[in-house]
């Protein structure tokens, strides 16, 4: 049996305890309570190191001048503004990012269009295109390292069959090293885009193509007027996701070239690593890391904006 207490005339009901109970059981307090474990973990593994990195970027912790530790200031940021190596790395990161995005998007879209229509051996073809995704980046780097080898790599062996084209040391030549890394990165990450495009293509109603076909639209016109506009939000999302992945790419570059030859492949992430663990200049490395985080935040904001537009956009496969 339950007994309900009612406020008697002239007696003030216990409003405060009722409100706070509601706040904790069904209001924002409840949501906060449920999120608390995740927030604690995230704060510990992301928030704390981030704060530590910001503090470190204003400090002067370097192996070359141990006595300078504890000297706080904006000197690292001033150095960053006039450091040609840092801005060169930013430029290489941008090139690497654009190269991987262009390569992955075109390869993934082509593969998705091919396996979306082809009926025979479709499952095998899809599996083949997805396989690179299952390979860890470290293994990808090692395999491509062997393939690029100037003496016994399979790429040069295959080029022996092509007239007037000579093989070379792909990862040692300054002209080809960055492009070679981009190819390896594209191979590893294009399946992410492939999955998205395949899902997007499946969501386009077949009737749209039939209607266009009846209206005299050829294969290219159907691709231009139906497929591309219907995939526009997916393409936008994929481009930004791949930009983020490309910008923060590390293992493949680090294992294959370590930033060489002569800094030709030293992207911002690799420069950050090299500054910290080769030059042992931890504070400046933290400053470079903060720069990388700021660029990533801009990219993430772009991603969120595209997602918001996709949610309220007119038509189109999302």
């Amino acid at each position, binding site marked *: 049996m339950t007994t309900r207490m009612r406020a008697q005339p002239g007696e003030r009901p216990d409003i405060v305890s009722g409100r706070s109970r509601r706040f904790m059981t069904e209001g924002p307090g409840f949501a906060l309570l449920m999120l608390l474990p995740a927030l604690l973990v995230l704060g510990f593994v992301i928030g704390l190191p981030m704060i530590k990195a910001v503090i470190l970027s204003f400090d002067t912790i370097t192996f070359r001048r141990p006595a300078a530790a504890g000297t706080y200031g904006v000197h690292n940021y001033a150095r960053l503004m006039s450091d040609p190596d840092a801005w060169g790395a930013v430029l290489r990161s941008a090139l690497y990012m654009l190269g991987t995005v262009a390569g992955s998007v075109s390869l993934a879209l082509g593969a998705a269009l091919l396996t979306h229509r082809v009926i025979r051996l479709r499952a095998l073809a899809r599996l083949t295109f997805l396989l690179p995704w299952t390979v860890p980046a470290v293994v990808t780097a090692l395999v491509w390292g062997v393939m690029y080898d100037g003496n016994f790599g399979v790429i040069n062996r295959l080029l022996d069959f092509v007239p007037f084209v000579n093989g070379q040391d792909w990862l040692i030549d300054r002209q080809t090293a960055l492009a070679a890394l981009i190819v390896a990165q594209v191979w590893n990450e294009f399946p992410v885009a492939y999955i998205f495009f395949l899902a997007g293509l499946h969501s386009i109603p077949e009737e749209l193509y*039939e*209607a*266009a076909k*009846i*209206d005299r*639209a050829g294969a290219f016109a159907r691709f231009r007027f139906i497929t591309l506009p219907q995939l*526009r939000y997916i393409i936008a999302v994929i481009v930004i996701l791949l930009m983020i992945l490309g910008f923060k790419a590390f293992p493949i570059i680090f294992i294959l070239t370590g930033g060489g030859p002569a800094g030709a492949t030293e992207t911002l992430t690799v420069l950050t690593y090299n500054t910290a663990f080769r030059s042992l200049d931890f504070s400046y490395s933290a400053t470079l890391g903060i720069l990388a985080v700021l660029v990533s935040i801009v990219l993430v904001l772009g991603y969120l904006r595209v997602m918001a537009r996709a949610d309220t956009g007119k*038509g*189109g496969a999302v």
Partner: protein
Amino acid sequence: MTETAPAIELRNISKAYGALRVIDDVSLRVEKGVFITLLGPSGCGKSTLLRSIVGLARPDSGQILVDGNDITNAAAHNRPVKMVFQDYALFPHMTVAQNIGFGCEMQGMSRKSISRRCQELLDLIRLPNLAGRYPDALSGGQRQRVALARALAPDPSALLLDEPLGALDLKLRQDMQRELKSIQRRTEKTFVFVTHDQEEAMSMSDLVAVMNKGRIEQLGAPQDVYANPATEFVANFVGAANLFRAHVIAVEGNEAKLEVEGSEWIVPVNRVTCGNGLKAGDRAIIVIRPEALTTDTTKAAGAIRITGKVTEQTYFGDRVHLHLSLANGRSVLIDARPQSLRPGVDEMTVECPASDLAIIVRGKRTEHS
């Protein structure tokens, strides 16, 4: 192309998916400016037939002619026919004007001509101010009209409509039926309409082709198909019907004596709906529409009288449905005026003028080619 050539002519079209024959030797001739409906249940092959005409399905055998030209092997984009899809298939990323002008653009028309044609069609479908809207900002009826305008834009010889009213609610569907018929009259185009809704087919069409199991069971004007069903399927599918199994005892002059489920009926031979008339020994089905049976018996000579127990009376306001159970256990439906409602009445005799029944000789089939 010849002046007298029909808009669409199908010659012995057949199509099978594996062992399933979806179109079975269909022949059909549709004259210019006619509104014809392919009517049948789901899976009877009507949509496949439509898709064969427009070029989205390839028949296994037979010939398709449009304006006298053989287009059997022509690609879909080279056929002078257009199609309105069940879900309209409007391009969601294009405005109404861009949707309507798409076919013209693909034909290489100038921007000015496309714009003029769009405005003409927007006026025709009575949506002159919606050129800049996107399909998702239109109602179901407006989308349907835009789909119609898009199909009409390249000025096709014939327009094929695949259940385009299926997604609309009843009131809107009825409005759009009138609108479609009105547009067809104004444009004088040949419309081939596909539906499973027999009331829709009856109210809109100049001709109805009733399809079943990949074949056309009957082709005719709606009132003819309703009054003179050629097969048992047509009698059952188009409207409600009371069917009686009969056996021809004798034929004398213009009358035939039939044994109908234990009774003897005298019926006029000219009520046979297909074939070469009746002869003794034939098996037949007598079709009596529920509204042909009246509770006001006249005792007129030649009228068919049926007596049975009233098992159910359902009142609909403007009419009443009576169910009679005959002595042999079978049930008969009567669609009568509300005044016919007889609370408390146990037994009733109803009458049908012999001229209102139809006789289907079993085992015979009509020809349409």
